């Protein structure tokens, strides 16, 4: 990975004094992940350039990590861009090899260190989430002229498009200290990644390097969030500390209250309406023992547990991971024994029949069937209707006709990447009627959410009973 800093501030060779590196030398420092080199490809009165080359060891990245075996997260891959791009590794090297310069001190040229001089930073391959736009938004407010060129993924395959790397040239007139500090913070922000665990001490680092300029930066939130790897708690704390001296703006407070009110007045969410409709249907069925098939993390189950008269609520999901989250959210560990006896979560699959699903009064299948391949609906039907065979089955699924009313949804697209299909009302009617006839149930269909005269409601529900 490579970064160069140039100046034409005469005598340009003073850059060596500012960086505490002799332009004739080859300076190295060892790091856990590789070796940093500082070299000067040019050093004349007119122009001087310092090159920071970091030779990241790609094998060490994978091998040196405990528990890296079999993981597929980025650092566990030998085919890895880290050795070739600027990133948090670069910040670590900057912080060590240019540590004195970053504090603004220079033994030989103390005045120059405090002076704003012409500086040009070149980052030939820098990853940037959000592309040229984000790079510009991050650096221009700090007084840089930004020249950014997108790098294609592979010229041989133009159809693959552009990579997320930029060839970035940043020019400014500023102190070397501020440029180094800003690079230190912003390189990992551009990349939106860090090679190490981010903890509370990362906030101190951010405030130390960004104390002078971050508070006034229009992208303050973005920078803080990305620097702290999107950890919400850390981000809030950092922003709080950053704004400590900033008295609350009374106008801003009023504006935020308005937004809250607006949110309250907004119609209750579709999700909430769906839950309400399903709970109503469960109540109307008189069921005492209820299955939530495809329960996810147990959102519906939490509501069902509050219902009086439900003796048992059991959630089934195929994802073991999401069930662990559910068990945590339902507080299984600390639940009172009597309540704990009412509820359970099991891993199961709706395409295998399952003895544990017998002897329930009602089964809820809320927003689940659209995640099954159409060819597996027959197995689903027999697992639920033939084998589990509850008195009542409640199924909800999107009404694809309504999709044209979602402004953010591009035409022809489904609502979720994993949806294998979304049905029209006629398709849903045909399937539900078929199931009812084959399985000896009667079926009643209804819509959930606003009823559009042309396209119907966003969600459709069928209640089967026998």
């Amino acid at each position, binding site marked *: 990975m*490579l970064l*160069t800093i140039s100046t034409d501030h005469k005598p340009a060779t003073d850059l060596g004094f500012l960086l505490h590196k002799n332009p*004739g*030398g*080859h300076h190295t420092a060892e790091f856990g992940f590789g070796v940093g*080199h500082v*070299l*000067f*490809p*040019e*050093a004349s009165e007119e122009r001087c350039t310092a*090159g920071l*080359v970091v030779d990241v060891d*790609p*094998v060490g990245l994978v*091998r040196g990590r405990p528990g890296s*075996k*079999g993981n*597929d997260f980025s650092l566990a*891959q*030998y*085919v*890895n*861009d880290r*050795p*070739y*791009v600027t990133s948090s590794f670069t910040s670590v090297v900057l912080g060590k090899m240019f540590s004195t310069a970053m504090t603004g001190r220079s033994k030989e040229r103390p005045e120059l260190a405090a002076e704003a001089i012409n500086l040009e930073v070149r980052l*030939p*391959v820098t*990853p940037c989430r959000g592309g040229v736009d984000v790079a510009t938004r991050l650096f221009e407010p700090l007084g840089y002229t930004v020249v950014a060129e997108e*790098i*294609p*993924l*592979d010229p*041989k*395959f133009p*159809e*693959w*498009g552009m*990579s997320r*790397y930029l060839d970035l040239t940043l020019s400014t007139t500023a102190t070397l200290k501020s440029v180094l500090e800003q690079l230190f913070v912003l390189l990992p922000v551009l990349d939106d990644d860090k090679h190490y665990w981010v903890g509370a001490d990362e906030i101190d680092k951010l405030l130390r390097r960004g104390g002078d300029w971050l508070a006034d930066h229009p992208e303050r939130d973005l920078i803080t969030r990305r620097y702290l790897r999107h950890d919400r708690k850390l981000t809030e704390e950092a922003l709080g500390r950053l704004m400590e001296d900033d008295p609350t703006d009374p106008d801003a407070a009023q504006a935020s209250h308005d937004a809250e009110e607006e949110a309250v007045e907004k119609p209750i969410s579709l999700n909430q309406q769906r839950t309400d409709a399903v709970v109503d249907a469960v109540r109307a069925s008189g069921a005492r023992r209820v299955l939530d098939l495809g329960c996810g993390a147990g959102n519906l189950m939490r509501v069902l547990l509050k219902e009086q008269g439900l003796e048992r609520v059991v959630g089934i999901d*195929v994802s*073991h991971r999401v069930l662990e989250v559910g068990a945590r959210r339902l507080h299984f560990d600390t639940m009172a024994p009597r309540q704990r006896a009412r509820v359970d979560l099991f*891993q199961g*699959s*709706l*395409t*295998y*029949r399952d*003895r544990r699903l017998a002897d329930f009064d009602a089964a809820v299948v809320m927003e689940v069937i659209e*995640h*099954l*391949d159409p060819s*597996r609906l*027959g*197995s689903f039907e*027999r*697992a639920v209707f*033939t*084998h589990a065979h509850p008195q009542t089955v409640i199924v909800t699924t999107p009404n694809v006709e309504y999709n044209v009313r979602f402004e953010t949804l591009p035409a022809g697209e489904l609502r979720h990447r994993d949806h294998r299909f979304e049905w029209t009302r006629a398709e849903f009617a045909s399937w539900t009627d078929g199931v009812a006839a084959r399985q000896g149930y009667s079926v009643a269909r209804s819509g959930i959410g606003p009823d559009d005269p042309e396209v119907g409601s966003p969600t459709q529900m069928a209640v089967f009973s026998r």
Partner: protein
Amino acid sequence: MTTIKIPELCVVALVGVTGSGKSTFAANHFLPTEVLSSDFFRGLVSDDENDQAATNAAFDVLHYVAGKRLEAGRLCVVDATNVQPPARKGLIDLAKSHHTLAVAIVLDVSEATCIERNASRPDRQFGPHVLRNQRSQLRRSMRGLRREGFSRVYHLDEAEIADVVIEREPLWNDRRSDHGPFDIIGDIHGCHTELVELLGTLGYEVDADGTSARHPGGRRALFLGDLVDRGPATPAVLRLVMGMVEEGTALCIPGNHEVKLLRALNGRKVTPSHGLAESLEQLAAEPPEFSTQVAAFIDGLISHYVLDDGDLVVTHAGLPENMQGRASGAVRSFSLYGDTTGETDEYGLPIRYPWAEDYRGKANVVYGHTPVPEAVWLNRTICIDTGCVFGGQLTALRYPEKELVSVPAQKMYYEPAKPLVPDQPLKDAREGTDLDLEDVVGKRILETRLTTSITIREENAIAALEVMSRFAVDPRWLAYLPPTMSPTATSNREGMLEHPHEAFAAFRAAGVEQVVCEEKHMGSRAIAVVCREPSVARARFGIESAAGGVIYTRTGRPFFTDPTLEAQFLERIRAGVTAAGLWGELGTEWLILDCELMPWSAKAEELLRRQYAPVGAAAARTVRAELAIVEAAGERGTDVADLLGHMGERASMVDGFIAAYGEYCWPVVTLDDLKLAPFQILAGEGEVYALRDHLWHLEVLGRLTATDPVTFRATRSITVDVDDEASVEGATTWWEELTAAGGEGMVVKPIDVVHKGPDGLAQPGIKVRGREYLRIIYGPEYTAERHLSRLRSRGLGRKRGLAIREFALGIESLERFVAREPLYRVHECVFGVLALESEPVDPRL
């Protein structure tokens, strides 16, 4: 000497007061593990064998253990006083619930002896009233033991106890040592003409007077009951069957109709419905002694048989696994009437629980009782009552051949209560083949023919369940998932990580002489199931598929997201198979092909755009820019000699990396851009071709690929004698040329596929990947010696173990599929491969 006979499997209750010598008796006549002593269990739960307060808990545990033993078919001897009726009732209930008999052995010892024995035991110092109470309870119990439910009661006095022999005898239904061959014949119902015709078709010689028949080849007929009622000639059928049983050329079990007829013949009051009236009328025309013979014959029939080492169970109405080879009233009822729920349907017929759908037993169950339009295997069960008397057919199952032989009814002799062929379209072929979660989850131990049992860990099954349920194609398509393959042992040659030398050496060490090296295509693994016609998909796979096949990935996902594209591509494969004449040559209407589908980018474009291309783009620029900086500094006089040394070679390595992945990418605009390289024919009707030698595959597939060079790619190969240096040398050169031209590498396989060497199965294949290709795996610069030296330490043991186990499971699933085993039996192996694939193993191997 007294001899006591007990059934091989039963609950033996020792009955006797304290000090009567039950433990000694048990120790003398039974295995220590067969004896469950109340004292022992009291100690187990309370640390004190004589703690009466622990009695209830002790018996709970005792009953639990006894239940487990009975489930497993193990004799239980309960060593407790058992002088009180409630204690004995517990044991009788236990025996009944496991469909076994209970036997009581009473040890009647004089009071004096008991007192003497107890006196010598310091832990048995209780008052004389205890003994007296027990003796009086015992005395009162004696007469009622039979009535309580003990099928045999033995009463031994002191002298007899000392000199008794216990003999264990098999149950009447146990004919495991009888291996047939049999011709199993379904419900006849007085259809004598059809019976004689069927016996003739099966090769039996029927005596002119109709009193017996025999097969010249020594085959025996096995009648499944319901010989009588409804039809025109019940006496003639009985005469023939009774004669054959008498002569030893047939076995017969009773049906519910025989049982009812017997009751009528014995003078009991029965409603002469369901065709009984016809039988009685016909029998009335016979001499009275014939009816007496019939009654005796029926009375002597055993309700079901377990035959052929437990592989075959015959019963009139079916029998679940836990009742096979057992004896109880429930077993007899089930055998005669099936699993009725007590409800009746709209025709007034009893509703039956479809027990066969749940059946997971090892034995083939052949039964009749319920007329079906067609005899079809379901989970190793088959009902062969094809309703002859209702105008259907009389059907026989030849065993062990499992061939069905039928003759049509001459006419409808009796109007069925329910139409034999339902009005609605034929039932969904999938019905009854539903997979049960219990078929796949939890810790599982799978038996395979090629290796010892394979354990699937619970956590791996958890991971596989999600993939299988959410992403895989219909499991009825999945007769196979490809196993993982181990790379060759690591090479120490300069600049190399893998080299053919080690692969050949490995096979030499395993005792394999001949191997074939096949070009390894670099695309995505694809398993293609191709049926000659869509109707074949329905008949053989049970799936309605307009495309008549499927193409899926190594994890069972659909290869194509667009079904139209899949159908078109399948059509091309089908056309190739047809043009090559393989349908006729192999005598199959379907094939499962193991293939590589190219280009890699067709399936892996996301990966290429996210990982490979970005690394190439970044590396190409950075290494050149870094080199320029270092060179410029060097020109200025900075000492950069060491840095220049390794910087200089980087650009060519990175270019090699970009070229390596680029080799496997091209845009797919039309179907013509997809290339399929089939390298193995896995299976077709009646044969697992995967077991044929690789040269056969290469030859046959060579002809297939030649039919359509646009769609197919041939697999280049070279055969090697691993002990011949020149041969090995030639193959090495071949590999070098192949990989230098951009090839991924090769796979080295034992020609005869399955090779059992001194250390078990040899690897079914070892891959040797090219030096350039490995840049995609180990990173652009892996060939630098400073990296290679570390990369060489890689552990292959786990990968090799997985490769063997998954291979064995793959062959097993194909064999089961070809043998038409139940879906759950095929699926458990396929699921097992997927589960093993979630084992953590170095993904670069």
